[in-house]
């Protein structure tokens, strides 16, 4: 092409390309949410406090395991288990968040690997126990090892089930055995992860909270203030999907004879249902704090009411069940218990549907692909 033709071509380009670009950039009609306000509520009201709780709970866990292993006794084991449960609760209170500092260095998966369809984590933990090589418990080595041997899932395998794991498993001649030292190393690893995640949100020259709250600076991911709204909606939707499809539908199976309690998330510590209740409460809090008040008037009142009612009904259904109901994943022999769990599953399914595409459309947001797409 001769060079002098360029201006003409660029002019042609302007006419052929510009209109659709302008069309896309045009604001949709109707009121726009105050995204900056919403972002502040999300960060200050929901995320940072919950990561603070996680940092504290994992620090307590590490201290508890260290104390237990200094002189293993029954009281120490009970306390360590209690602190594990507290850390698991804290994690489930914020595990729906999959973006931000929790993505750094694969922290999300280092906290927990689940589901684990082939039992790879259990296999690797048993291999590490059998190998009993202290070098693998060094902080840097453990952090680089398989994610399945350094987080909550691995620690649960070391501490539970009650019926199989006893004090003697943690003892050796003259003090703590390898299992105890392994557990304590995981505790320290988790405390480090909890601290680092909180610090990345709140401290340093460019805390992540600032990136989120001051659109246009930093990483560009949230340069458009509505991008965070999209991320929150996806968080809510994916959180509901995890509860519905993985935590409830998998152990219950398609019918009573197909129930499989070994697919419940925390059957060893018998915390599977407690985790679900904590997840639902956390999603309710995310909705009530960071979405509902600020989106009022932007969506149809019945959308808001429907979502709020579903969230409340799911939480209440969860809390009304016996605490170990899901770990037992009742089959045909206990139709009432099963029916109650199926009701909870269906409410979680309704929550997933209500936070999906229709809602995104009402808010003029677009849900993208998520990491659970695929099989």
């Amino acid at each position, binding site marked *: 092409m001769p060079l002098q033709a360029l201006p003409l071509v660029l002019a042609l380009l302007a006419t052929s390309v510009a209109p659709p670009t302008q069309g*896309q950039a045009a604001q949709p009609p109707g009121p726009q949410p105050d995204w900056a306000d919403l972002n502040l509520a999300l960060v200050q009201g929901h995320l940072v406090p919950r990561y603070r709780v996680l940092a504290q709970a994992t620090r307590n866990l590490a201290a508890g395991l260290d104390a237990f292993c200094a002189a293993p006794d029954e009281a120490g084991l009970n306390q360590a288990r209690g602190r594990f449960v507290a850390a698991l609760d804290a994690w489930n209170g914020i595990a729906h968040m999959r973006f931000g500092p929790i993505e750094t260095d694969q922290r999300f998966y280092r906290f927990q690997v689940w589901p684990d369809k082939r039992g*790879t*984590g259990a296999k690797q933990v048993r291999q590490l126990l059998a190998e009993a090589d202290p070098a693998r418990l060094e902080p840097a080595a453990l952090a680089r090892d398989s994610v*399945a041997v350094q987080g909550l899932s691995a620690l649960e395998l070391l501490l539970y089930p009650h019926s199989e794991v006893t004090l003697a498993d943690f003892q050796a001649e003259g003090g703590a055995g390898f299992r105890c030292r392994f557990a304590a190393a995981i505790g320290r690893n988790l405390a480090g992860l909890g601290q680092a995640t909180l610090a990345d949100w709140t401290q340093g020259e460019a805390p992540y909270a600032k990136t989120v709250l001051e659109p246009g600076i930093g990483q560009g991911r949230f340069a458009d203030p509505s991008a965070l709204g999209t991320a929150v909606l996806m968080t809510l939707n994916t959180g509901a999907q995890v509860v519905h499809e993985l935590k409830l539908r998998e152990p219950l199976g398609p019918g009573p004879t197909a129930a499989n309690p070994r697919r419940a998330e925390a059957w060893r510590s018998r915390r599977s249902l407690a985790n679900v209740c904590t997840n639902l409460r956390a999603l309710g809090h995310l909705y009530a704090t960071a979405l509902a008040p600020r989106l009022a008037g932007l969506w149809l009142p019945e959308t808001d009411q429907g979502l709020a009612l579903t969230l409340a009904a799911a939480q209440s259904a969860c809390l009304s069940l016996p605490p170990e109901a899901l770990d037992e994943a009742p089959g045909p022999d206990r139709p009432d218990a099963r029916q109650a769990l199926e009701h909870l599953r269906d409410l979680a399914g309704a929550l997933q549907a209500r936070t999906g595409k*229709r809602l995104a459309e009402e808010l003029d947001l*677009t849900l993208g692909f998520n*990491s659970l797409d695929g*099989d």
Partner: protein
Amino acid sequence: MPNLRNQPVPTLALTLALALSLAGPLSPASAAAAPDTKAVLTHYAVLAEAQYGDALEAAKALRSAVDTLTTTPTQVNLAAARDAWKAARAPYQQTEAFRFGNPIVDDWEGKVNAWPLDEGLIDYVDAAVYGEGNEENPQALANLIANPRLQVGGKAVDASTLDKALLAKTLHEADGVETNVATGYHAIEFLLWGQDRNGTGPQTGSGPGDRPASDFDPAACTGGNCDRRAAYLKAATDLLVDDLTWMRAQWGKGGAARKAVIGAKPKQGLTMILTGLGSLSYGELAGERMKLGLMLHDPEEEHDCFSDNTHWSHYYDALGIRNLYLGQYRRSDGAELAGPSLSALVAAKDPAADAALRERLDYTLSRMQVLVDSAERDGVAYDQLIGAGNPEGNAKVQSAIDALTAQTKAIEGVIAALGLGNVALEGSDSLDAPDKVGR
């Protein structure tokens, strides 16, 4: 997820490239070049028929090689069967880009490519590699080849004859457990190679499984039950041919899958295509098949873990995604198919979105090529690349994962450009409701 309505203006280089293409004597203005949506959807179905046809022919060649092996179990014939399996993977993996957008494909896929598997369901395993079973799966150590009787779902099953019906109807996904994979490419792969017991280390980790041909030789049997193993292999290979025959017919004239795409409303049809590309790129390939393995550093956490063929399987997935966007496919006999493409459709509406995705697709393929080169040229297999203590290898795999993630963002850009934002995919278990039970 960034809001893609507000995209940056195209870079100057891109603008100039576009200007050149617009000004070329053979290039009409972009709007005029846009193909009709119906033509794009029709061509997509034509590509599907060709691709499943190639996968079927390669599976028939595999069946023939398996027949030779079971009739005359020599190392040479075992090697030939393994080569035929690898050759069969190339066209099949490219078809995976159809899967998530087409319920007919997605509902069927578990029969032929279910993964991961608890291979102890099928045959003997080495506990040092396999562990002591899988607590979620009561059949993880069932060893069908050694055990003609077993319990499934509390009922006694007579497995004295290992035939197609038993594998497909009773044993596959037994007890509702997805990792009970009794049929498909990976069951066949396990029978041809056996477990890869080499770990992930730099020296010890090289090499695939090393099952001897005598495992199929009743006259000089190793591993026990050689006649049953041979029968299993033949039944599984026959089933694969049956299943691919069925799928190709779904894409032929009058086939249900073809009708579903061509008969869809334009936005629905385009959403089907893009759902397939995005879900395979991100959740399935980048996530389930690559990222998880990289984080677990486990030799069984690679897609083709028995044959060490994973690099090619991932490469052909990426190629298949690119093909469907560009509306092209190179058949097994070398013939090139090309026609009205989604790319051209997007280019007419939003050249920047089209260019961004094409660039991303090319880049992903180049990252997959790095994995292929590592295995084929440098002798470092995929399971060694994901090993603990191999930061360079890990980085190569991570780079491919990052490329797929960026590619997914570009696919979302194309979805926005076509105004398909929240078009619901009827009857699909992808995008916002992946159905994990009874795929």
